[in-house]
């Protein structure tokens, strides 16, 4: 939809020859190398999921339960309360052929262990939720940087003109802390920002007239408008005016496509059941997962699902400061079955080979509890020094666990993966060299990966 000249927004000419070359490299070529994945579904857990209670098995924690942190280093935690160590609240088991260790926190997901690629050696730069979530999504700790979905929209566009390239499905209980800031396009053109779909009413703003317009008036209006605009464009021969005419045509297609794709009643009863739509615990996230599959299937480049709303008590996200057992049980129950259903559905429909599923959280939780120095508390504080995420689908080695934290799961020590590494790998799978997807902003060719990032080759198929 955007012509090259618009894309550059007036940037051009001798002096900016380098800029121009880079923008073209970042965009016009579409991919820098053959892509393994065409699109992404990103499940984003807000609040900090405990890796040591889910995907990072640390038997030593059982040994140290009730003891002091076996280290002379004083942890620099968010709330500064260093209680005694606590063992995992769930039993870990080896799963499937791969023998990956996954705890009973995610019983459904565990049956798909052979299809997951775990990273157990993540490290973030902040133990403060929002800067950490910004980094998880945009690579930077500050407001004003484009989210990963916006970068992909900019880099690859959408596979369809009838739907936005970057769709966000917030938790039904509320937007994450910071709200829409989380899916901003930052300094990229505003069109690349995430479009949050509502689960009730009109899925997006202004899809249909705010007040009813009779169908014949609507049709006649469109026709008159096209006639006026064509006459205007004829005199002027501007690319933008041609693009504008096309925009009005596509708007009509969107009005058909969006209600169709969001209509979950078109799915079979069996599918709806599999996603848990009829169970109160799983209905919300089940709807989001099913909608994500439908959007992805129709060519939406990046669908982002949020598990968890804002902070505060009672908890409605993964921020288990008071009681991990209680908090994580509630949160996992909402998503475990729907996520497993999504993975199976993608496999059954032949979408698995071209879809990349990401399952991330802004940081993990501490092996010691958040309590008085002599107490085994029930909650855990933020831990950005070591945590786990997983990827699944196109282009990955399945049933693999990459990297390690230390004996107690406090710090990543082996094959440490940072967010820029993670982002570089995601872009790589989509056929993009993370160093070449750039956008000039206030002096810098900005990248999702800043000046960092190494593709994690060992997890690629």
């Amino acid at each position, binding site marked *: *939809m*955007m012509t090259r000249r618009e894309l550059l927004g*007036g*940037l*051009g*000419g*001798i*002096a900016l*020859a*380098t800029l121009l070359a880079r923008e073209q490299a970042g965009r016009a070529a579409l991919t820098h190398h053959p892509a393994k994945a065409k699109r992404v579904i990103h499940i984003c857990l807000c609040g900090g999921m405990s890796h040591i209670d889910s995907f990072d098995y640390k038997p030593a924690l059982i040994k140290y339960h009730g003891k002091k942190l076996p280290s002379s280093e004083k942890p*620099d*935690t*968010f709330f500064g309360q260093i209680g005694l160590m606590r063992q995992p609240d769930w039993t870990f088991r080896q799963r499937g052929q791969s023998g990956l260790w996954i705890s009973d926190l995610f019983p459904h997901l565990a049956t798909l262990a052979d299809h997951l690629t775990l990273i157990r050696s993540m490290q973030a730069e*902040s133990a*403060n939720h*929002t*800067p950490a979530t910004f980094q998880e999504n945009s690579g930077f700790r*500050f*407001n*004003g*940087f484009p989210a990963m979905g916006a970068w992909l929209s900019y880099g690859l566009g959408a596979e369809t*003109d009838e739907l936005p390239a970057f769709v966000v499905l917030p938790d039904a209980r*509320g*937007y994450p*802390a*910071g*709200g*829409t*800031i989380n899916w901003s396009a930052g*300094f990229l*053109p*505003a*069109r690349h920002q995430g479009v949050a779909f509502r689960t009730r009413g009109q899925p997006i703003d*202004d*899809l249909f*007239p*705010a*007040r009813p317009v009779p169908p014949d*008036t609507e049709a*006649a*209006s469109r026709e*008159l408008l096209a006639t*006026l*605009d064509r006459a*205007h*464009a004829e005199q*002027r021969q501007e690319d*933008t*005016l041609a693009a504008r005419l096309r*925009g*009005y045509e596509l*708007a009509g297609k*969107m009005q058909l496509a969006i209600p169709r794709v969001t209509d979950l009643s078109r799915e079979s009863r069996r599918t709806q059941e599999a996603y848990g739509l009829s169970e109160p615990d799983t209905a919300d996230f089940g709807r989001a997962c099913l909608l994500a599959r439908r959007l992805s299937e129709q060519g939406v480049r990046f669908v982002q699902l949020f598990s968890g709303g*804002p*902070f*505060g008590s009672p908890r409605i996200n993964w921020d288990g400061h008071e009681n991990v057992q209680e908090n994580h049980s509630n949160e996992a129950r909402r998503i475990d079955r729907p996520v497993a259903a999504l993975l199976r559905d993608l496999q059954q429909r032949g979408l698995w080979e071209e879809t990349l599923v990401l399952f991330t959280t802004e940081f993990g939780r501490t092996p010691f509890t958040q309590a008085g*120095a002599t107490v085994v508390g029930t909650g855990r504080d933020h831990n950005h020094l070591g945590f786990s995420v997983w990827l699944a689908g196109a282009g990955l080695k399945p049933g693999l666990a990459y990297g390690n934290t230390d004996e107690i799961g406090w710090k990543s020590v082996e094959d440490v993966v940072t967010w820029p590494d993670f982002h570089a790998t995601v872009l790589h799978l989509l056929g993009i060299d993370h160093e070449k997807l750039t956008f*000039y902003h*206030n*002096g810098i060719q900005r990248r999702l990966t800043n000046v960092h990032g190494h593709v994690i080759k060992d997890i690629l198929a």
Partner: protein
Amino acid sequence: MTLLLSLCLGAGPAVSPAPDFDRQIAPILIQRCLDCHSGPAPEAKLDLRRKLSPRAARRAVERVLDEQMPPGKPLPAHEQALLKRWLEAGAVWGTDPIDPFARTTTQRGGRDWWSLQPVRSPLVPTVSGADHPIDAFWLQRLHQAKLTPSPQADRRILIRRLSYDLIGLPPSPAEVEAFVKDTRPDAYERLVDRLLASPRYGERWARHWLDIARFGESDGFERDLPRLNAWPYRDWVVQALNADRPYDQFARAQLIGDLENEAEAAGFLVAGPHDIVLPVGETMRAAMRQDELEDIVGTVAQVFLGLTFHCARCHDHKFDPIPQSDYYRLASALAGVGHGERTLKNPKLEERKKQREQLLAQRDALEKPVRARLYAAGKVKPAQPTLAWDFTAGLAEMQNRATLVLHGGASRDLQGLHLNGKEAYAAVALKGTFKAKTFDVWLKLANLEQRGGGVISLQSADGNVFDALVFAEQQPRHWLAGSDHFRRTRPLGGPEETSRDTLRLTLTYSVDGTITLYRDGKPYGKSYRVAPLELRDPVLLLGLRHSPAVGNRLFAGTILKAQLYDRALSAEEVQGQGVVTSEQILAELDEPSRRTHAHLSQQIEQLQREIAAMEAAPPKLYTVQPINPGVTHLLIRGNVTSKADVIAPEVPSVLQALLEPTRLPPDAPESARRRALARWLTDGRNPLFARVIVNRLWHYHFGRGLVESPSDLGFNAGLPTHPELLDWLAAELPRQDWSLKAIHRLIVTSRVYRQASLPRAEALKQDADNRLLWRKSPVRLEAETLRDAMLAISDDLAPMLGGPPYQDFRSYFFKGTQYYDIVEETSNRRSLYRMWARGGRHPFLDTFDCPDPSASTPRRTVTTTPLQALALLNNARVLRQSERLAASLASQPDAIGTLLLRAYGRAPTERERALMEPFVQQHGLAALVRVVLNSAEFTQVD
């Protein structure tokens, strides 16, 4: 010797000459090696800026030729070959150390980069057909390229273009007709002057300025709390532009306005995001503060210098001659800039206070002799504390309804309350509002080495805000009045503590913010005045600075007795002289004096009530809240735990050749740092200052600057399309006393600006991007202008200037985050006056490329998308304005004609009438207005 010489000569023609170090080798080292091998902590302790012995050079070059270095990124073959030849020729070093920033190379800019050179004042060339200086420069360039200019646009187009450009609104049909018919030779200039004098001019251009100021009206981050008092900065910008404040003053006020009675202007510095969710850990806090400083430093440098200093926070700038130390020079200058809300001075309040002081003095003169008599006669009662614990007098608590709760192993006996300095403290929640107060404590220190323990503290329930009596937090063995982020803490300058015996410390906080500490009844150091803290339903702590009880916040020692007063005790009261009650005084006065006293008291009471009311609802302002700037260090790779050299708030090296140094020490006071920054930044000899703003103005008038990136005149920006014109304008600005309106007038009265916009095939072929300005490029209305124009043509635009913003969202606080749910907006005010909450962006405006208020946006992108079509067709605002405009047109004899005059500034053609008349008959006038609001001609300006 001869043999050797002949051998060399003989070998000569076979090999190419040895590479020149400074010209050929140093640039390779700069580009490929110095990122890691230079600076305060070079990799492998190898600093490649310094001269290497031939042996060391051989070792280094061999690793490069083995492709071990740089890791993973071997050098291209020709660079390897150059290094090899240099080695073979004896590895002769040139300039030592290498100055990577001296000269511009093909890869990066040096200090010889064009924008860093003094502004020349080029002579206006003589070009036939150009009687305007701008046109002379423009035509000369155009002719060189063998291009011809476009003819002047017709008057209907000119007035529409000029009106949108200068005031952001369409001209009314009457204004269009008047201009078209105006036969005076200076009709156009008159129009320009009229528009520049309109208050709408300030509104229009303030929007541009707020884009680069990243002006948002909420905090961003997790809380995203609204900033209900940020708008005075927006109004300040509007008024300053309307008053044509000279640009150097305009800039200075935004950097130091809060120091000069213009605190609104300083809102610029803190218009960006601010994270108020603070972790306990000092390292994490420090990193967050560094991120915030990057936003402030980056914005100041981009806006006023057109250089991207923020790129040099972690390493030397990759493209511009900005060493990392230059970033920290600016960071040091701005290190004291904190976010916050200030209570504004209310002149009426000040007046009332003065009156009260005079009356109090009169009453005091009456009372003084009586008080002296009463003291002499020993008839005085001691002051009564609000709360008091005398641990040595048994376990009964005096007159307290609130009971102390002991935590972390705190214990009490007849010796006092024992606190171990690790976890022990006592706390009690209080009811009511505390502003003035006195802490009066008898204590024994367990040791004199402890640092930072709070003896007694009054804090907010969450512990984020507090006033406390603290031992040795900033300076060993010194008492201080501790506070959150040292906001109300200043060095008292009292003596070092040497005693571990029983001491009495009395800390008084008066209503006017005066803080005084007494040790054993005698003043400890000097008292000082700050903005006072007011706490509602606070928590009183003994033994803890503020909660949670971690780190160095706990006091080690014994508290024998502790008292809290809800007012500041006077020096006499502290010294135990007690208070004289008013009843006692009245009883001693004679009748006439008693009447005078009563009259004075009545007046004082009346004033007290007025003052209290004014103080209860003070005018507030979101602006700079200075914090202790400390001493700035260069941070290796930007890491807060890797401190290197101390950096003073000095002129950056990139400009040192042109400007006088500030000569400030690294620990200079906050205000001195910012004043110095404002001085050199706006100095007429700083070539960037004028170049950047004239280029910005050009950018907004033409849709593209003479330099294409208005906030970056560094290497990445390349060369200006018209370098001499840029310099002429930059020189003209100070000649016009820094009047921005004068520059606007110059630009819009030029022929280049008045050209028609229609494309011409032959010119398009040669210069499709119109870089040489052979026509005026058409533009699409910006998001806000589009909304404003819809309101304007239906006569709905509210004329009100300034004031608090309108809200087009439902805002509520939910679980720690402020949310802004967009609702159907009904305000008729200009879009400038919208409340720009960071988490409350408006989908309609966003669709038309309204930028993220968190990112400084010198150039808006312009996109064309199907979502725009949906927004313009379906948005409630568009339908509403369609109906409103249709209703007002219904009474017009020629509704279609009037509609097009308003929307397009012209009458309909025959063909248009033929299409529109039957359409209106069938579908109504509102449907036609909707079509016109959607049409390209309405949304585009030729």
